[in-house]
């Protein structure tokens, strides 16, 4: 990092969106400095943990099967956001995904057919060979080959903004603060999901028991600086994408492998050994994202997914071994639950079952009768030892709060005027498109689209 140099484009952040912006700006002829707050080993923000891109396509292409048109993509987005989306920006994103794969391949990304267990996504999502970290590595190689300067372990602590224009950034690097001047800045530094104090502000003390699925480096500092400088905010400030993950996962960075996919096969009880929601409401891929909030609402933010021997081996094996027992009582003791309460819950559940033919691949007719809450599919008795349990906690994937942007990725101020030289891309502005909810591969779609736009527009601002 050469802080005496006046760069054309300063990129804040080191994930997918930041790299897309840096590469595009550099290719347009700009001098580019990228500041990544993480050390090299943990570079890439939450893009490290991603694995696919939701792609619009009108015919089978590369690894994508069938067709997934703009309208269907848009409808899918509307369903999950409940209208909290900017249609113009959303459609821009959708259309960009139809063409950006060539750019990605050119810069070293490789695609592979849908992963085992995710075949249902082969029509809508293009999977990265090796996942998001492989993609990030490819982009860093491309950026370095092109001559983008990259500085790791470099944390932005302040931005100097004058009359709505970016002037300089202050960054902490190896213990000292440096002021970096640049003609334009691209804010692509992610959300605030790793900032425990900020999470507590949003969720109260329950946030103490949340696990952070992604990088510990998303502290939301750049987001906070922009909001404090009167940037217009967007997205629900009090929500995040939250799934139920194994309670034994590390506090940060557990990623994909901490998932527990057996909820729909058994029952889930809370710390009082009581069930609290319909485990069989829908297929797990359509339901896992609500279970984070459900567990967050339980006492001490903990729950236990319980299955019996019949279901073992019928789901992707979780990374941590299950708690195993030969009876409900024994299981309760192992989980430190009230044995009588758990026995009552299981007995009540087992005796409420209506006969049906179990089929995990369809919404089958195995349901409970007169039970509150009901289990509406895949309800089978918990009666065949050994019994297994996986403890669950809310795991936060990302936050929705961001800065509003226009179609040139320029940050909007509260009076709706765009900044001429401050651009935003990635999670920090994802709320423009995804104000709430989630569909797989949309984060990378937004990051890639707005990364490209931000890089190109920043270069245009510099070069004209």
């Amino acid at each position, binding site marked *: 990092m050469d802080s005496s140099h006046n760069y054309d484009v300063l990129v804040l952040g080191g994930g997918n969106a930041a790299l897309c912006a840096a590469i595009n700006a550099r290719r347009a002829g700009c001098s580019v400095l990228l500041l990544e707050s993480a050390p090299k080993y943990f570079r890439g923000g939450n893009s490290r943990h991603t694995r696919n891109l939701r792609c619009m396509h009108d015919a089978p292409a590369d690894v994508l099967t069938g067709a997934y048109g703009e309208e269907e993509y848009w409808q899918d987005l509307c369903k999950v956001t409940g209208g909290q989306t900017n249609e113009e920006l959303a459609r821009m994103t959708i259309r960009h995904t139809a063409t950006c794969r060539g750019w990605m391949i050119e810069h070293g990304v490789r695609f592979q057919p849908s*992963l*085992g*267990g995710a075949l249902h996504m082969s029509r809508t999502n293009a999977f990265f*060979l090796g996942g*998001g970290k492989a993609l990030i590595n490819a982009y860093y190689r491309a950026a370095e080959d092109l001559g983008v300067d990259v500085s790791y372990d470099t944390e932005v602590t302040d931005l100097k903004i004058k009359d709505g224009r970016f002037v300089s950034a202050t960054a902490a690097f190896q213990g000292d603060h440096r002021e970096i001047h640049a003609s334009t800045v691209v804010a692509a530094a992610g959300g605030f999901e790793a900032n425990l104090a900020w999470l507590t502000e949003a969720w109260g003390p329950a946030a103490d028991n949340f696990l952070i699925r992604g990088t510990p480096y998303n502290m939301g500092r750049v987001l906070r600086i922009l909001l404090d400088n009167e940037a217009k905010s967007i997205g629900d400030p009090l929500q995040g994408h939250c799934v139920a993950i194994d309670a034994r996962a*590390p506090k940060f960075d557990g990623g*994909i492998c901490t998932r527990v996919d057996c909820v729909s096969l058994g029952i889930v009880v809370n710390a009082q050994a009581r069930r609290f929601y319909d485990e069989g409401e829908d*297929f797990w891929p359509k339901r896992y994202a609500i279970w984070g909030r459900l567990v967050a609402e339980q006492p001490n933010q903990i729950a236990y997914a319980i299955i019996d021997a019949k279901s073992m081996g019928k789901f992707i*094996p979780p990374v941590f071994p299950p708690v195993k027992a030969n009876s409900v009582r024994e299981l309760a003791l192992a989980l430190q639950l009230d044995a009588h309460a758990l026995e009552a819950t299981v007995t009540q559940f087992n005796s409420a079952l209506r006969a049906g033919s179990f089929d995990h691949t369809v919404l089958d007719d195995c349901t409970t009768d007169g039970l509150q809450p009901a289990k509406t599919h895949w309800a089978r008795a918990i009666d065949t030892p050994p019994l297994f349990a996986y403890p669950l906690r809310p795991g936060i994937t990302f936050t929705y709060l961001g800065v509003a942007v226009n179609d040139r990725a320029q940050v909007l101020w509260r009076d709706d005027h765009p900044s001429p030289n401050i651009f935003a891309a990635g999670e920090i502005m994802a709320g423009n498109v995804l104000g709430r909810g989630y569909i797989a591969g949309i984060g990378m779609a937004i990051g890639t689209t707005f990364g490209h736009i931000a890089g190109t527009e920043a270069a245009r601002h510099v070069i004209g």
Partner: protein
Amino acid sequence: MSSARSVAPACLEEGRRMASICNACRYCEGYCAVFPALERRLSFTDGDLAYLANLCHDCGACYYACQYAPPHEFQLDFPKIMTQIRDATYRQYAWPGLLAMLFEHNGLVVGLMAVAGAVDFLLGMAVFVGRQALLSAHPDSTGAFYALMPHAIMAWTFGAVFALAVAALVVASARFWRGIGEEPEAFLSPGPFSRAIDSALQLEYLRGGGDGCNNRDDRPSQARRVCHQITVYGFLLCFAATCVATVYHYALGRHAPYAFWSLPVLLGSVGGIGLLVGPAGLAWLRARRDPALAGGKQIGMDWGFLLLLPLVSVTGLLLLVLRETATMGAMLALHLGTVMALFITLPYGKFVHAVYRFAALVRYHVERRRPLPELGPE
């Protein structure tokens, strides 16, 4: 089997821990055969780990793509644990078991064997044909080799040692096949067998999913794959040269040394050049290998083999060039000595990777014809 020769329990436990993380993540399944094979399993027996470890071609792609690689607290270095388990399986399944100890300090063992081989042949020839004959020039080269060592003795000695080496490899791979839990007849299923040959000839799984394997950092390259195949095809050409020469000798009555443009010499020369170029490239790459990928004990074994192969080749090519000079005798002794060292250490050195890996590839293609475990959508 003594426990000293099995894979260390700690190593297996670590392998199981890492494989369980991979099985829950699955991001790497496009890189090679290991991850699809791993995903067929819910838990991992010792045999499963031996199978996966030998199916792993050590391309390194998964290490650089891994979000759980060190310094992540999961400390997942999959290629490294695969290498450690693989090395241990070489010891575990070696036959006769007593000779498994040759895998300890294998680089040194192979080096000493090469020196001992050369010295033995030099001394042997000096004793049996006399110093005078050994050091004289042979302008009319016809039959000169056999003046120093009668053909029958040469053929029978090398034939016998080679046959023993092959027998040791066959028994070892049969033990491996049983150890990973397969029935003997499955090995020769025609479809999987020919798919495995195909995978091996192309070195399909050193492609890292397409762009090549990793060596020094996260940048993929085909260099290691290309150098490896130059070595393999060089080795096969040299072997073919020997086979053709044997046919010439016994069937056609044409005796070595052969003319420069004869088939055995052409095959041997091209092969010999391959055995110089290939290992040189591999050694260059090996020296630049990311330490994160190198799994400890194998380093000596790799170097031993990477030096022995070009030594065999250099002495052979020098013999060809110098066969009409006074140094012919010494060159013949050096060449025969290093070839003998190669034959003896075939089942007790790096060469075994070819045998176990091929068996693992056959197993992979056998398994692919079996139904997958039923899992719900994730």
